[in-house]
């Protein structure tokens, strides 16, 4: 009687949840479930509470629903601060599909993407410093075209270079709650690999500190990209 055992385990889990979070309205729970199931895209708490009756405890409903679905074939995931039902990761073998060809990235692009993700906000020069090579113009273009990388702002250093960061689509694609949840982030931080480049003077030669031969200054017509890219100058 596997089933009963599972059920009892479920109850125990539920009871735990019960003691942690306040009792939730079961009708509200159904509604959140329906809303999240129906929507193709991740929904944030605000979107949920707009559709729910006044006074519904959205955070409690979500954590309750997450607990209900925790062991199921479908899980309620937190993606980019929003919530979405997704098939359980361990069932990937059952559902796996080949990625469409256009999203196959070059080695350089993958490496650049990782550096942007972990080091953001990061300038082109900093990416080149880490990779030890001048970047071809196409690399970041490809990442921006796929929609995973965006221009965040400009660094308050001479030349005011633009800074890159990852987009929400990146978080959605890789199933991340936020960039703070990148795998191995803490280890990299502890090892000091994410810190700003130490003062130069005794540094290994950089591929290019200034403007690369294939690099144009950022200006004018791209101003709109900046505006849409949730710029955070403070971090620069």
């Amino acid at each position, binding site marked *: 009687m596997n089933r009963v055992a599972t059920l009892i385990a479920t109850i125990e889990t539920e009871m735990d949840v019960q003691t942690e979070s306040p009792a939730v309205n079961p009708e509200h729970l159904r509604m959140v479930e329906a809303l999240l*199931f*129906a*929507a*193709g*895209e991740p929904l944030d708490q605000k979107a949920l509470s707009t559709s729910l009756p006044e006074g519904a405890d959205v955070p409690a409903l979500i954590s309750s629903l997450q607990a209900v679905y925790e062991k199921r074939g479908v899980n309620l995931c937190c993606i980019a601060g929003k919530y*979405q*039902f*997704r*098939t*359980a*990761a361990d069932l*990937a073998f059952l*559902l*796996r*599909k*080949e*990625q469409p060809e256009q999203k196959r990235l070059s*080695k*350089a692009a*993958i*490496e650049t*993407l*990782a*550096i942007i*993700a*972990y080091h953001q906000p990061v300038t082109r020069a900093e990416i080149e410093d*880490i*990779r*030890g*090579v*001048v970047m071809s113009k196409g690399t970041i273009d490809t990442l921006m075209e796929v929609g995973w990388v965006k221009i965040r702002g400009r660094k308050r250093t001479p030349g005011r270079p633009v800074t890159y960061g990852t987009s929400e689509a990146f978080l*959605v*694609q*890789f*199933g*991340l709650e936020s960039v703070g949840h*990148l*795998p*191995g982030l803490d280890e*990299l931080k502890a*090892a000091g*690999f994410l810190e700003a480049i*130490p003062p130069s*003077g*005794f*540094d*290994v*030669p950089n*591929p290019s500190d200034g403007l690369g031969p294939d690099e144009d200054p950022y200006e004018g017509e791209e101003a709109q990209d900046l505006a849409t890219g949730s710029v955070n100058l403070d971090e620069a």
Partner: protein
Amino acid sequence: MTDTAENFDDFESTAIAADDDALVVTVDGFEGPLDLLLTLARNQKVDIAKISVLKLAEQYLEFIEAARKINLELAADYLVMAAWLAYLKSRLVLPQEKTPEGEPSADEMATRLRWRLQRLDAMRAAATRLMNRERLDRDVFGRGDPEPVNVVKLRTYKDTLYDLLTAYATDRARRLGGKAYKPVVSPVLQIEEARERLERMLGRIGDWSGLSRLLPPDWQGGQRRRSALASTLLACLELARDGKVELNQGAPFEEIYVRDRSGPHAPLAPETGA
């Protein structure tokens, strides 16, 4: 260095392959000098943090030398790195050398190089981990058939009483008052037609025939007669100018008489006041 290939498992091409003595050199697969250094470092099979920078520098310089021998074109940054490593090597092998003021020691420079290699290595590992995550639409899936929100349009009309009254009064009044002008197309007997007809009649027109009797029989009455009368008169005037007919009218608005001059008979004075 026979197992170099496995160090490139993430790379598309094997950039360096070597047996114990000879290096086979190509820079095609390397993403810059740091990448080359990292590959060489991995070949030392020790923790990068503890790697011998001196040995690494020697391997790098050897590689560059070999590349030059086969006239391989090397990007400038490979050569800059070579120069820097040669300098570092010279300082490393002269341990007694005093570090000039404000310049890092050779050990510090070596440490810094190790750190950069470690960092690149760590970022590559992170990239691999990232790409191996369960990715949306490849490994995990959202709802395959989402149920879209039905947008129900709550239609309201902006029309006001003003619009209603305008429509009733103004538009209707305009329709009633200002009937559109429609030109009346009157029947017209062409002058040419009238002249041709008269010319055919020449020789058969009697002495001083009334113009009204010369009109085409199917152009009698109303508009048609008026047009036929005017055209026939104009045709007669043309014929008179050509000397083919004579015209006579007793008084304004009286009947106009036409006399054929093409015939043999001599002209006679018309009776006036018919």
